[in-house]
């Protein structure tokens, strides 16, 4: 049937980030499927992709605010909170890049927690650390970022 055919043709390349996030999330939430076991891997992949996708969106918004013109009519006042949010995300992203050069693991952890919204347990699985470590490192990362962004 058509579906099988589609699969054979393989469709087109779809590892663009959006597809990846979607796929990762589908799998994440579909854990009733007992066959999916390497959760950590998925968490890590989705967190990384999330950061990228969120930052990309934030950049596009920032461009828009600077007068970029894509023919989009603003939805009343909705861009205001979104713009604030974008600004913050971009600041954190920049700080995180810096943090990665000091402590790569802390940066990955913030990706998992802040960008992907993973729980401590999930983050621990993603980064191959214990839950207690994930908790402690999160406080460390927050302290570092707070100082950096102050």
């Amino acid at each position: 049937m058509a579906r099988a055919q589609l699969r054979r043709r393989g469709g087109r390349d779809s590892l663009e980030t959006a597809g990846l996030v979607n796929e990762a999330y589908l799998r994440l939430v579909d854990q009733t499927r007992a066959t999916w076991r390497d959760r950590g891997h998925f968490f890590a992949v989705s967190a990384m992709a999330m950061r990228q996708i969120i930052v990309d969106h934030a950049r596009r918004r920032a461009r828009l605010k600077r007068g970029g013109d894509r023919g989009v009519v603003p939805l009343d006042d909705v861009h205001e909170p979104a713009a604030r949010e974008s600004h913050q995300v971009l600041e954190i992203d920049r700080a995180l890049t810096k943090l990665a050069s000091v402590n790569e693991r802390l940066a990955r952890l913030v990706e998992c927690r802040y960008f992907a919204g993973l729980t401590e347990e999930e983050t621990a699985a993603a980064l191959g650390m214990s839950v207690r470590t994930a908790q402690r490192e999160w406080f460390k990362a927050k302290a570092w970022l707070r100082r950096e962004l102050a």
Partner: protein
Amino acid sequence: MMPDLTRWPHADQLLDEALALPAHERDAFLRRATGADAELLAALQAVVAEAASHDGFLVPGGALSGTLGEEVVQSLGPEESGLLLTPGARVEHYEIVALIGRGGMGEVYRARDQRLHRDVALKVLRARFAREPGRIARFQREARTLASLSHSGIGAIYGVAEDGEIEALVLELVEGPTLAQCLDARALPVSEALAIGRRVAEAIEAAHARGILHRDLKPANIKLAPDGAIKILDFGLAKALAPEPLWPNSDEDLTGESPGILLGTPAYMSPEQVRGEPVDERADIWAFGCIVYEMLAGVRAFPGASATEVMARVLERNPDFDALPASTPESIRRLLRRALEKNPRRRLGHIGDALLEFDDASPAGRGPAVAAVPPRLLQAMLVLMGLALGVLATFLVLRREAAPSRSVSRFMVPLPAGDIPVTGFQPAVALSPDGRTIVYRASRNGAVQLFRRDLDALEPRPIEGTENATGPFFSPDGRSLGFDSDGVLKRVSLTGGSPVVICQAPGGATAAWLPDDSIVFATNTGRVLQRVPASGGAPVPLTALDTSRGATLHLLPQGLPDGRTLLFTIVSGAGRHIALRLPSGEIRVLAEGTHARFLPGGILVFSRSGSLWGAPFDAVRHALTGPAVPLVEGIEHTDNAVLHFATASDGSLTYLPAGQEVGSVQRLVWFDRSGRQTDVDLEPGPYTRVSLSPDDRAVALTQRERGNTDVWVANLERRTLSRLTFEPTIETMPTWSPDGTRIAFRSEREGPGIFVRDAQGAGPTERLTSTDGPIHSPYSWTPDGRTLLLAVFRSFRQQAIASVTPPDQTVRVLLDGEFAQLDPHVSPDGRWLAYQSDESGRFEVYVRPYPEVRAGRWQVSTAGGTSPRWSRDGRELFFVDESGLLSAAVSVGGGFAAAPPRRLFRVKPFGGRLGADYEVSADGRRFLFILGAPARAPATAELVYVQHWAEEVRAQLTQP
């Protein structure tokens, strides 16, 4: 700048200790612990302060607001229960009460017979089984015969029930534990064992007298009542449920049971069953002997750690009769020896004779030694056994090339029944350098691990210590295997021993083992190639991401034969390229594609668009020397990047054919107003988000397949499914226009927004809206077909209702707020807007005047509700709650008024927070729902093996 805490080796320990204390004691502890080191104290205090801060700075998931909400929400929808039927559902006049159990052929439910007012057991056959042509007819024939069997010791078969696609056996409901549960590795008192044995023999005799064999007799099939009565379950079902003969030249009786049943219970299987020979009542007698033996001895007559071992024992060895308790009567010892005689011709021929032995049972001495059975040639038997079970590789030579120096052969390598290959972001198969050993990742009984299949062995073996492992790769000598185990790179000797940690590799590694005994790997968190000694140690980066070219990830390394040049994949945004890292450190991009592997004779094979491609390659000049051509299609892949294949140094190939994984599937079902179901004649698939055409003849829906989500149109009359959208991204939320000519949908393509296309797939796709951030999700058109209503997804929790009137692309927000408002539908007279909102804390259905939405608001649902839909005459508003469909009568005389909703029927809707996935027919009398269907799983999964494949590839690449 914050001081780097790694300067203090004990900082982490101090932090852990401090955090373990109540908040008010932490500071004092830190002061004590740091002594005079004020810098350390300040650094630790800053960290500990974060544990107590709740000022909203950097909260978990903080970045998640914005645009990803719908993906998350949508994913939350499918709750795959795997259940075919939910309590309250009906099959004919049987109402489902609860799920009792599930087995290889389907689920067993407790159900209420509404006519006879008794509870029965409904064995519902899996759709897969029910669809096999010819099987149903045979099954019904068998069931009728079985229904004629009536004996107090046999669980009765009342008959067959069918309802649409559902096919079920109606069985007597027998309460109480099974004999298997009572035995549980301990013996019964001799008198009790004999009493049970006698009743079992009587029941078997009654069945045999009618010519009915059980064929799968075992303790798990025998129920014990408190009063000492027994009931044998599933008499004759093994045959009724058997698949078509496995081999064309074997008749039905040769394969009286399915491989699943065979594999599940070899402990009670007679030698002739093990060999796949015809069986008669003596097979039941053998099983009976095994059961009596086990009751008395407390151990199985033919124990073994694996099915193979058990079957070898069944064929070769006699039970240990010395293990029977001393008080076992001589007549029973005699009975067991005759029942467990390997040669059927010399075995006890009639179960009635066993009854005589029970009559004779009296305490007596030990019998004479058992005559040894001439041992057969084990090798030959194992081969026969393998054939019967379909476990042995089926050597299917599909094509022989005349030219190649070594002949190319193709084999199917079946996995044992029930084992399901499991893929992921790392290759799920590996091949030893000599091509003789395949390692693959599979799930057995829900647990994932690596299995090793030697081509000259009969069965795969689990590799110890590889639970949850993935991404296997061989050492150059083929004696060791590396793999990723939950973010840790490990190695294990294939000749035995426990896995050893090589290094941490969080994020999942793809790796290669080089001849110098180092391992090159890449992880999704490390992102570049790293090298680590195979003996373990700290990884050293080998490559750097060229971010100027957008590179985000290096992965899937392989060493070229020189042992110094690495082949790998670069992911950069949407682009993927195969590349080389030369010994000098220079990176050279070769071609578009991923997951490249070098084959002997100067060939590179790699993944492109989910297929395996090949190109001639000059390993000295490090360049491709000819065009790439597609070689193999239909290989399972993950997101087109990782193909689940492996090659060997001898040029052999193995791969996992596509479509064998278990996936979540849904089916379409019509309900009438009373809840009666009729399945839509459309094969279940990964369907979501239905939109019914205004004439009820077609359904637009979303199909989600491997990260590629597209809108399809199913013609319900011609039962065809055709694709409407083609972008390699998410395209969903089809919304049929009222005149039936066009379908709007949302697309995440470059320049995302809402688009519309001719429903027949003719003509171009037109843009309706553009979005630079929030997702625009279409829900419905106004009755005049001029305006499209949509939800604007600001975040996971916050959605606004808006409209767009083409060709003007202005999105007008109608309803906004700090909560979720979605699924807008305008009434047929165009005056009222129904939608769902969680402003009260949970979703309720509301109605407002349209287009003046501020002029009033009425709540229609009273105890939660989502997904409002108007009847075509506008007199009814339907909506769903967690347990089914409701209807509220609507009057719109002066203003809007809705009667209290009443429930039409119960159904567990599919769809989650975004609202249920259902539609109302034009006449308002039928409702199309998407419901979960049982997961698809192939009867037997298999790998494909192509020996000396490189010969064939070389020929293909050198053709003019």
